[in-house]
């Protein structure tokens, strides 16, 4: 059962594993007067027996030691008797023991290690690999959509995030709406587009095509620490006239066995500058992931055809 409650009035835990209903379980569940007891009588009895054995062992430890010594002495004696005698080797046919099927070793459950509070790691074991191809693809998708729009069409949101793109575009009349639909559908590289034409607002939802073949970028050791990485990105953003709008200190987290470095940033800049910035990142081997590119038509430049296209984008490092 998918247990989602947006009112948030429940404790969330791991998925509940419901035992297979058996007559015994059912009988147990239905037995009256059994609720609220933490230990059963059987458990208590076993506990007392265990305590009695321990006390006896403590009292008679000398006897046990003596018993141990006897065992050691006997073992030594047997080993001495079995030591090979040097001399001519007798040819004997090897005795083949009948093969007996050994039961598979029973795996003992490993005792759970006590949770320890880990010190913050200064240098990560592995850094998030920057998906250069995906970042370029995001920018291309974003700009392709904006450029396909007629100049007087207002868009409230165009947002590229992960593998999807969403947009809300207002048209001035039905003719323009058709024009917009056709323009987007022909120009924009998506799998599918859906439109809601209610109130002259087009809502576009699409899925990006898989990433184009672009060279992989490996992260540089020089910028392996979060601080060095962040400083280098800061410096590059200034060099390429990008404005840092917001930045946050995210907690260190791990996803798909990749340690994500702290920090995210929101930039605002022109398309050409952003692309130069990305080139710089690629050359230096910095680690970032562009997670979202979005914009509104109020940030749009006058020339649709030029690369003077303002937009915001975020990265995670």
């Amino acid at each position, binding site marked *: *059962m*998918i*247990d*989602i*409650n*947006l*009112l*948030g*009035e429940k404790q*969330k835990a*791991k*998925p509940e594993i*419901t035992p297979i*209903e058996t007559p015994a379980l059912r009988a147990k569940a239905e037995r009256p007067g059994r609720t609220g007891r933490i230990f059963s009588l059987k458990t208590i009895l076993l506990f007392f027996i265990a305590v009695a054995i321990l006390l006896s062992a403590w009292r008679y430890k000398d006897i046990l030691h003596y018993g141990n010594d006897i065992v050691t002495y006997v073992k030594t004696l047997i080993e001495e008797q079995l030591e090979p005698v040097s001399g001519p080797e007798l040819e004997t046919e090897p005795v083949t023991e009948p093969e007996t099927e050994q039961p598979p070793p029973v795996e003992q459950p490993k005792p759970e290690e006590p949770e320890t509070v880990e010190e913050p790691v200064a240098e990560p074991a592995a850094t998030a690999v920057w998906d250069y191809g995906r970042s370029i693809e995001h920018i291309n998708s974003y700009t392709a959509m904006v450029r396909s729009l007629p100049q007087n069409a207002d868009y409230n*949101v165009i*947002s590229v*995030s*992960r593998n999807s793109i969403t947009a809300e575009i207002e048209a001035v009349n039905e003719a323009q709406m058709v024009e917009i639909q056709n323009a987007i559908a022909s120009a924009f590289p998506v*799998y*599918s587009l*859906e*439109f*809601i*034409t209610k109130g002259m607002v087009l809502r576009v*939802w699409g*899925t990006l095509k898989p990433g184009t073949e672009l060279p992989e970028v490996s992260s540089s050791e020089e910028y392996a620490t979060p601080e060095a990485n962040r400083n280098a990105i800061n410096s590059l953003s200034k060099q390429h006239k990008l404005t840092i709008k917001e930045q946050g200190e*995210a*907690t260190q*987290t*791990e*996803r*798909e*066995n990749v340690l994500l470095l702290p920090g*995210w940033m929101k930039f605002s800049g022109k398309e050409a500058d952003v692309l130069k910035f990305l080139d710089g990142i690629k050359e230096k081997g910095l680690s970032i992931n562009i*997670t*979202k590119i*979005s914009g509104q038509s109020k940030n749009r430049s006058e020339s649709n055809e030029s690369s003077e296209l303002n937009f915001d984008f975020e990265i995670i490092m």
Partner: protein
Amino acid sequence: MAKITKNRRLGLSFGSEDLFLVETKEETAKNFKVAALLNVTSEIPFSVDMLTQESGAKMIGSELKNLLERNNITTKNASISLDFGLGNIIKIPYSEKLSEKELSTHLSWELQQYIDDDIAEYAYDFYKLDKSPPELLLVGTRKKVLEFFREMSRHAGIDLQVVTIDLLSAVNAFEVNYKPYPNEKIALVEIGEQKLVFTLLEGNSFIGYHCVFLDDSVQNDYVNSVLELITLNLKTLFNDYELSTDKNEFDRAYLYRTNTKYSVMEFIEAADQELYMFNPFELVRFDANLQDKINHLADNSEYVEALGLTVG
């Protein structure tokens, strides 16, 4: 197995023009019975626009109150499902090593990637899927949407306990009624007034979902046009999700409806491929007073989401 945690529960699913209600009673899955079913074309249909109207919650709440009174339904424990468009459903991997606080921070950040407003405006919940590597479903909605339904419930005189997303209710209804093999690839297809929603499952496990909005062009030949879209999307989704290398189609596709104009049977009869009707009462029993009034062979699939709200 489904567990009914309350003696009686109401599941309320709002369609674009209709309200679907299921009331269940008794305590265990074995005795799980449907006590009441209502399919009402509301005088004041719920719409997204109402969320911004101050009087919207009061209007719908009062109408619901009258409806319950007219049908002698006194159950107060209620669950409501939201149209998926009012929420964000995101499936993401996560680390089991994260503490509760770290996970919360992580989820806030993830949700922020999908919304354009302040995260403080949103409420969210998550469900850990039983998968390896671990994945979870993150579901968020605007707090003002929840406020609307709280206010509506107050006027209706019901005790709102759960708010979830409609397609997730449908998954729960499926789990109660069907027992697929764990590796079977299943598609649940909701046929709504203006959209088709595809929910993809492997066995009973959620894989993903996809929505296709219907434009006016389908109205001329609704059944065949929609059927064409269903067939096309089932093929595309199967390939997109890379569900199997051995075959190229779902093992089974179940149709259910949230519209009252077209029966699912019309689509099944017109289809070239094998499609099934999602019967929310396949394994669910009816209370004695309802037993004779229900046509078990008819299309009752409009109650899928409402029934799914009363289990879990």
